[in-house]
């Protein structure tokens, strides 16, 4: 019935995931890193929803999972931003390279 | 088979002393030393009792036993139940080594009187080391063996690293790295054997592997495992070219520790080669004897030649140990009764002789802060008794008849001549070289004019008796070797030598 196959959605998800990953690993600004992570989560959500329709046992559960993921992602974004601001206050920088307190 | 009571007591008696020591205050030097020496005694007496009550090691079965320790795996799924038991047991060879360990531990505890600081920690580690060494020889189970093996390594590491001489840390790390590699390889072998056969019991493994016609392991795998064992124990023995850590240990560790190191710890290598290498893979061993013999000759001559150009007595003895371990190898290379027995004799004999040497070095070092030939020249004048012992130790070391070294050397050569006469003739050069370097060292120290007119007291009566005990053992074995050959014999029959 549908002319868009499952693999198309999954491919889209992979491409988005890869873009997000690339951004998360290479960007210097912490905000961008956070938002790139959001992009990766979104890609995963596409997968969940796609499987909920085209999966082996299609059901609503996939969408529910996506909802939960969105909720958690939102929480994560909020907390991440809060941490960012706290660090910024100490270091006066949003550059990831300056956050190297793991070293000592 | 019940619980191996007496063996467990032998192995773990020093642990009791260790626990007692934790209760003693750090500053009470006398108490610490007394407790330490006393806690080495039960093992000694019990092992003497064991050797006597078992009719010189003939009836030993009743003393071994096991206790279920851990089991895993599901027979229905994997077809095997993997169980590791707490198993202790001895045969003639390990019983002799057990006795040797207990004896040398007591004497080394005595020789440790020269330790100037940190007695408590020292003796605690010392007792731990003894537990490890005793356990290695009493373990009837590869996993247990490995655990004890590692205990000795850890204890020696700290003993050398903290109480050694000038380059102690480097030496300790060198010891740790080399032996760590050896242990790792050993562990791999143990795991492979365990995984494939489902048992870690030594005797069970022996019977499985000897009955194996290629179904459990293909011959190639067996050769590979045997080679891995060679490397693992060869580092410990040490086989050339893995020897440099051992030279360092000989020259940097405290004398009492070298007594144990040269006397017992190196012997674990030989013990492992004989017990596991030969015991598990007799056929593959057979095909490797030529290489083993060549390595043995290299060890023998290489050590001897290098000992010839050293100035430091400790280093001379280190290379002499390498040389003497070559005799163990050529004995094994012969792979006949005489050869194997020679190797075993050499293990025991070199343990005693090296211990005597390092006992004396400890005494020299306490008085002169040196063991170099230059500093000790003319010792016979200031310390006649000590020089006498040194001379006797030297003579024993160069294989003088009437002392244990001769019996070992003689048997090893007897064996080698039957199998590899050409190698044996080359190896005979080692006999001469041994005489040359030992005499050079001993005469260089005892003979000559004392230029440094430093007056020191000779050995006190209290210091003499450990040397006498060692000497009595050396001469006893040398004069009447049958006293331990019957004990050692039981294992040769088992190995089908």
């Amino acid at each position, binding site marked *: 019935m549908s002319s868009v196959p499952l693999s198309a959605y999954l491919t889209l998800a992979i491409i988005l995931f890869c873009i997000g*990953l690339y951004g*998360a*690993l*290479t960007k210097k600004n912490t905000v961008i*890193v956070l938002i790139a992570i959001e992009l990766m989560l979104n890609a995963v959500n596409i997968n969940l929803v796609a499987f909920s329709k085209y999966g082996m046992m299609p059901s609503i559960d996939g969408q529910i999972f996506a909802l939960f993921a969105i909720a958690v992602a939102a929480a994560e974004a909020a907390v991440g931003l809060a941490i960012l601001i706290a660090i910024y206050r100490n270091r006066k920088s949003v550059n*990831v*390279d300056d*956050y*190297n*307190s*793991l*070293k*000592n | 088979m019940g619980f191996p009571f007496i063996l467990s007591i032998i192995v773990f008696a020093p642990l009791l002393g260790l626990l007692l020591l934790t209760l003693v205050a750090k500053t009470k030097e006398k108490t610490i030393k007394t407790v330490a020496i006393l806690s080495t005694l039960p093992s000694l007496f019990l092992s003497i009792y064991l050797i006597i009550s078992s009719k010189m090691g003939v009836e030993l079965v009743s003393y071994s036993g096991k206790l279920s320790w851990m089991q895993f795996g599901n027979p229905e799924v994997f077809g095997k139940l993997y169980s590791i038991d707490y198993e202790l047991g001895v045969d003639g060879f390990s019983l002799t080594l057990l006795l040797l360990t207990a004896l040398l531990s007591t004497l080394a505890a005595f020789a440790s009187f020269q330790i100037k600081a940190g007695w408590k920690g020292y003796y605690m580690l010392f007792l731990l080391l003894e537990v490890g060494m005793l356990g290695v020889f009493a373990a009837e189970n590869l996993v247990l063996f490995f655990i004890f093996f590692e205990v000795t390594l850890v204890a020696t590491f700290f003993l050398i690293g903290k109480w050694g001489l000038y380059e102690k840390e480097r030496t300790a790390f060198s010891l740790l790295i080399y032996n760590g590699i050896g242990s790792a390889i050993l562990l791999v072998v143990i795991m492979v054997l365990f995984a494939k056969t489902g048992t870690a019991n030594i005797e069970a493994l022996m019977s499985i592997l000897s009955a194996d016609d290629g179904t459990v392991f293909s011959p190639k795998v067996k050769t590979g495992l045997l080679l891995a064992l060679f490397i693992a124990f060869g580092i410990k023995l040490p086989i050339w*070219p893995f020897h*440099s850590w051992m030279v360092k240990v000989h020259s940097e560790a405290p004398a009492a520790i070298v007594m144990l190191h040269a006397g017992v710890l190196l012997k674990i290598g030989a013990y492992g080669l004989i017990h596991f290498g030969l015991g598990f893979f007799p056929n593959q061993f057979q095909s490797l004897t030529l290489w083993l013999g060549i390595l043995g000759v290299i060890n023998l001559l290489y050590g001897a*030649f*290098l000992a*010839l*150009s050293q100035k430091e007595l400790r280093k001379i003895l280190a290379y002499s140990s390498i040389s003497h371990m070559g005799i163990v190898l050529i004995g094994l290379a012969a792979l*006949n*009764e*005489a050869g194997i*027995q020679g190797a075993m004799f050499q293990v025991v004999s070199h343990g005693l002789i090296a211990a005597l040497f390092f006992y004396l070095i400890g005494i020299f070092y306490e008085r002169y802060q040196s063991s170099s030939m230059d500093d000790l020249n*003319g010792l*016979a*004048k200031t310390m006649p008794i000590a020089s006498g012992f040194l001379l006797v130790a030297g003579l024993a070391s160069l294989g*003088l*008849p*009437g002392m244990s070294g*001769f*019996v070992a050397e*003689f*048997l090893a*050569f*007897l064996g080698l*001549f*039957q199998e590899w*006469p050409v190698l*044996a*003739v080359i190896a*005979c*050069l080692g*006999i*001469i*070289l041994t*005489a*040359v370097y030992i*005499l050079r060292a001993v*005469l260089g120290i005892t*003979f*000559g*004019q004392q230029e440094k007119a430093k007056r020191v007291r000779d050995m006190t009566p209290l210091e003499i008796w450990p040397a006498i005990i060692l000497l009595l053992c050396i001469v006893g074995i040398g004069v*009447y*070797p*049958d006293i331990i*050959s*019957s004990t050692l*014999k039981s294992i*040769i029959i088992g190995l089908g*030598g």
Partner: protein
Amino acid sequence: MMEIAWIIPLFPLFSFLVLLIFGRKWRRGQIDFAVILSLVSFICALLVLFARFTQENVKVEFIWLTIGETQLTAGFEVNQLNALMLVIVSLVSFLVHMYSKAYMEGDERITVFFSYLGLFTFAMLGLVLSPNLLQTYIFWELVGVGSFLLIGFYFYKEEAKVAAKKAFIMTRIGDVGLLIGMILLFWQVGSFEYDEIFAAISAGDLSETMATLTAILIFIGAVGKSGQFPLHSWLPDAMEGPTPVSALIHAATMVAAGVYLVAALYPLFAYSEVAMLTIAIVGGFTAIFAATIGMTQKDIKRALAYSTVSQLGYMMLALGVGGYVAGVFHLTTHAFFKALLFLAAGSVIHAVHTQDIEKMGGLWKKMKWTAPFFLIGTMAISGVPLLSGFFSKEEILVSAWVSGHYLLFTLAIVAAFFTAFYMFRLFFLVFGGEEKKEHSMVKESSNWMTVPMLVLALLAIVAGYIQTPWFGTFLGDWLTTGIAANVHGHLDGPLWVMIVATVVAFLGILLAWLMYSKKVISRDWFTSRAPYTYQLVVNKYYIDEVYQYIFVKGSRFVSQVLHFVEVYLIEGLISLVTITIRQLSMLGSKFQNGQTQLYGTVAFVGLAILIVVFALTGGGL
């Protein structure tokens, strides 16, 4: 008596232990104790010898070591040869004990000296009693140690240290030959027992080549111990030890052990012609070689030492040409007269405190006892008729003649001439001539020293009469009964052999008299004519230098090379490994820079690689 012959070596052992343990206390009593013990040991040996005249051989053994099914035994055996040796050894030992009591008086380590003497005597007696090769080897080494200890007795002297070391190592080279030969023989025959070896030989179980090989290897052991060429050079150096030691060990007993060994294993040697010839040639060459050196030595003890080497060569020659009895006979007589010579020399040295014969002279009047004794010894060794040396030497010459090795016979004659010459040279230089000023205070030695010399002098005169062409060949008949090999009790040689030997001896004496006493012939008559030859001889044919160069330098060189290998190659490889590991870890630690992005990158790249690899291999890695 013979069943308890094992007790004989135990007396000296006991003495050794007692003196070693209680050395510091009751000095004088202990020395008397040691002397008495050696006397007891001698008496027992004598009893055993007498018992052996009437009884059969005795052999007692117990298991010493078990190797699988093979059992090595230890025990003792009494036969003609070792009964005789027992007496010789214990007698000389006893006399030397007595002599040393006076000679070593005042030395603070005198008890140590006596304990070493005890050890040596024990080992030597044990060697003689051994019923098998293994036990022989054991005691063989032990006598080496006794000798080593006694040579190095003056431990503070550099020369003593070097000499002791040299003696031990050079004899050990021979010992290794013996060991190899012995082990090879064991694998051929299956036993170390003399009896079984002989049985195997007579049964023909041993191949000709194997017999030759083992025999020559065993002979190498004898070469080392008996100071035969080329392993002779330790023996003259061994004179650094106290003189009684030289008399006991390096003249009478231990150095004769090599000869004894060849004699004891005679059937084995007799089985192989090549081996016999080797022995004869080595012996003959050594005899003349050492005699030439002996003519030039200026140190009284060294001259005697070279004479010992030469005489031992004589014995070897005798055994090599089939003169079993002759060899043993010369061994016996030599033990007496050479011990006598050494003790007398010791007495002289004790009196004048020098060993240089140029500094002696005119002692005949001063030393009323020593001088005649020395003369007796000199005459005996030179082969002056009616003294013991004459008979034994004549026996050797006859054997050599009869065997048909005429070249060897000639060598022996020339050596006899040299012997007579250099011994009398020694005598004339030491006792003849003008009295030197510095010796005006010289006194005769005490009775403790003269009595042993007297005994030995008597023996040096009469010992020859146990085997003479005229009064019967008692020794030969007795020795050869029941021996496995084909040996003769006595050989009847042509009469002229005896005459030639006598003439040659007298010629030698005459020459020495003309040169050193009458001074008719200038002393440097020969040296001035052939200076290079003289230099060669006086420097002992540069043997020591050659050895020094080849073996000492050689082994040092190898040692240096291996040291190089050790330090640069092995340590280098190890540091290569450690440096690689260190560099790797430095590299690794660069990643630990605290930046989460980098950590993430590394983790992800690793994951990606894993995934790609798994995808490519299909997961079946």
